[in-house]
């Protein structure tokens, strides 16, 4: 397989993961496409936890708890 194709394929995972996050971050409202602020507010600490713990399960656990808390508070 040509080098270029391999390279292209190697970028696919980070692109897809970002796309799927962006899909929820940007929402359609009557005013157009805007940022889902609560989602962003939970996403930032979740990303920090991911960087800090390097753990999939911990990140998901904390993220879910933060979102549950955010929904409950607002």
């Amino acid at each position, binding site marked *: 397989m040509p080098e270029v194709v391999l390279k292209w394929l190697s970028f696919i995972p*980070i692109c897809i*993961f970002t796309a799927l996050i962006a899909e929820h971050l940007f929402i359609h409202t009557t005013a157009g496409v805007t940022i889902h602020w609560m989602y962003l507010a939970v996403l930032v600490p979740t990303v920090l936890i991911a960087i800090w713990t390097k753990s*999939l399960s911990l990140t*998901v656990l904390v993220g*879910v708890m933060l*979102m549950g808390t955010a929904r409950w508070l607002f």
Partner: protein
Amino acid sequence: MDVEARKHIPTAGNEPFLEGIKDCVPTLLGYMSIGFAFGIVGISSQLSIWEIALLSIFIYAGASQFIICALLVTGSPLSAIIFTTFIVNLRHLLLSLTLAPHFTRYSVKQNIGFGLLLTDESFGVAMNKLAQQGKLNNRWMHGLNITAYLCWIAACTLGGIFGHWISNPEALGLDFALSAMFAALLILSLQTVPKNKLTHRLSLVLYMFVAMFVLLHFVPSHVAVLLATVLVATIGVVTDK
């Protein structure tokens, strides 16, 4: 190297299949926690326990299963889901190509068996075994693969049962599990990038956000996902030194 390696062959009795199972054990916790998380995410993506079990049996690929859920939730057409899954799993072609030369003495049917159940983790364990022993045994590989496969199916199904048991997933924030998973996978991927390439990869992440934001004004989200990905991956190739 071969002679030395043979002197140090570890054995669990004389049965390579059992040894394969044993060598799989350290990776099982990882499989089971992600599998369990998938079961829960599957439920919040409106899948039934049956569908979760079948996905884990037929797809048997963590990241892809999560991506499929995300695409289903946004109502993507089947073609888009199949195409995306194919692209995401294409790296398995590379993993298999790397392992294949070590299994040439086994039949095509056996090799198909090795390949079908290949995962990133089993690839890692096999490469490690190869470094220790100098060669790979077919029964060992089957032991490794089948153990992981069965654990995965069990974990996903259990997660599904647990998720189903919780009556209101949104209130608990469970629907965020998918996004948290993608965030974690993204960070983990970026952490394996060599330092001098990190800025480049981060710029791709930025371009993805920009591309998605723009595209979402014009096309449905599943199209935006595909278009943005293809576009930015291409930019990545062009701008990479």
